[in-house]
């Protein structure tokens, strides 16, 4: 039985979502650890792209900030944010965008802006950063976040980064946009999206059962035809994560 922490389970599962991927747009925190882990395992050709304008980073340490001198030294390229967001992200050159969120709904809409009303929030979150355009322009999006009834909500308080439909189920993604969220990784399991854009449970981490998922979701979570029992990180993966996260 593994002694992996919930964060370590998420990092390992998120890294698994990057198997064979060539370009990932990385945020700070868990996505950063997952992407670095993937490069050491399932995606050796993975180029880490940071919104600060660093492409093909080979960080010698896991940075506190998305801009860190260790990302630059030894990278393949730096570019201005105009080139990065314009020519690179908007130009369709990013396969996977990895995003976190404070809230998600069944359509994969992400909130990182406010809890409560925009003008009188109970919690003011950081806002979009690059998330809104990553959600729209990356070829697909992998979400990594903690799951509870406060985060997997019936209706997000603010759509920072669009998913597959508007919160009321109307609309669809613009024709020019990428595929949107294709996987959500939490400490409980892994979720995919149906053809119509609604989230469904696709995999459960070790020692997590169906009821825990329902207890951690504010709507009636759909089930995939088959639900995988996720293997959890191998000992060597855990070692690698701990080397990375320090």
């Amino acid at each position, binding site marked *: 039985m593994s002694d992996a922490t919930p964060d370590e389970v998420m990092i390992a599962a998120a890294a698994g979502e990057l198997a064979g991927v060539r370009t990932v747009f990385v945020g700070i925190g868990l996505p950063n650890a997952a992407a670095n882990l993937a490069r050491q395992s399932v995606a050796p050709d993975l180029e880490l792209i940071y919104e600060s304008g660093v492409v093909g980073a080979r960080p010698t340490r896991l940075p506190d900030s998305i801009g860190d001198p260790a990302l630059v030294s030894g990278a393949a390229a730096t570019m201005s944010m105009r080139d990065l967001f314009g020519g690179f992200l908007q130009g369709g050159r990013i396969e996977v965008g990895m995003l976190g969120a404070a809230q998600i709904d069944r359509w994969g809409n992400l909130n990182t802006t406010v809890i409560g009303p925009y003008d009188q929030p109970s919690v003011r979150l950081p806002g*979009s950063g690059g998330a809104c355009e990553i959600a729209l322009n990356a070829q697909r999006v992998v979400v990594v976040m903690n799951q509870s009834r406060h985060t997997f909500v019936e209706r997000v308080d603010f759509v920072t980064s669009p998913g597959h439909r508007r919160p009321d189920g109307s609309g669809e993604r613009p024709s020019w946009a990428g595929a949107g969220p294709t996987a959500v990784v939490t400490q409980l399991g892994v979720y995919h999206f149906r053809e119509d854009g609604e989230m469904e449970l696709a995999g459960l981490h070790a020692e997590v059962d169906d009821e825990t998922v329902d207890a951690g979701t504010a709507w009636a979570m759909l089930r995939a035809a088959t639900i995988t029992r996720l293997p959890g990180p191998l000992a060597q993966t855990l070692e690698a994560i701990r080397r990375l996260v320090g």
Partner: protein
Amino acid sequence: MSSKVVSLREAIAAHVHDGDTVAIEGFTHLIGFAAAHEVIRQGRRDLILARLTPDLVYDQMVAAGCASKLVFSWLGNPGVGSLHAIRRAIEAGELEIEEYSHHGMVARYAAGASHLPFFPLRSYDGSDLAAANPLIRRVSSPYDGEEIAVVPPLNPDVTIIHAQRADADGNVQAWGIVGVQRDAALAARRVIAVVEELVDSSVIRDDPDRTLLPGTVVDAVCVEPFGAHPSFAQGHYDRDNGVYRDWDAISRDPSRLAAWLDEWVRSLDGRAAYVDRLGPAKVDALRPDPRPSGSVDYGSYR
């Protein structure tokens, strides 16, 4: 050519006025803390502060009462949490906000730099950001009728950038992450460049590709080593992550924050004194080992 080198005190006095729109840019890298502290010392008021990531630098300026409005795209202490002085000011109704995404801010500077009435970008569709900010609008393409989001130009009265080096003519060179620095400067009416090092023009002209801004667009050059601390200057010093982490507790507590501003800003007469207070052990600990770029050959042609 007459030298553009002046003291930071003179540059701020000459170029930053109450009520100005000010951009102290530098995305995670080369954040102009020395300049911000000088603005605080000179007691500027009612500034409109623009920056993708307000960071500690604007949390300090807001705490010091310099600002009436914030234009931004990501409001937090990276890897740590919130910017508490800014949050308090917003909640107290003392600080107006105008919010974009990163690409929106990048595009606003691009429009400002290149004198465009708007800049189009593929963002905001399906997001609530456009409803929250009426300056995010839409334009129809005259080719296929498709609608696309646009943002208006941002033209700061003054942009302050920090960089590794410049010559006395104002040619500025930077390496590593350059973010939006070029556009933020070209968009501005006045530009102050604060640098780690003043070098001979021959150093600049030996490698013209490294020039971030030619001297013709720079109004003042100020030499302030360690002037971007606690952010970093590639090749010069590391990010001081401890300062970012410690800031959380300081900025949560208005009286601690006031004491911090007295100790680290108002009681000092400039960045050299700040570096003294940091102490040589801290400064040394932040110095990286060398990692040279190597040289390329431009060729001498006659």
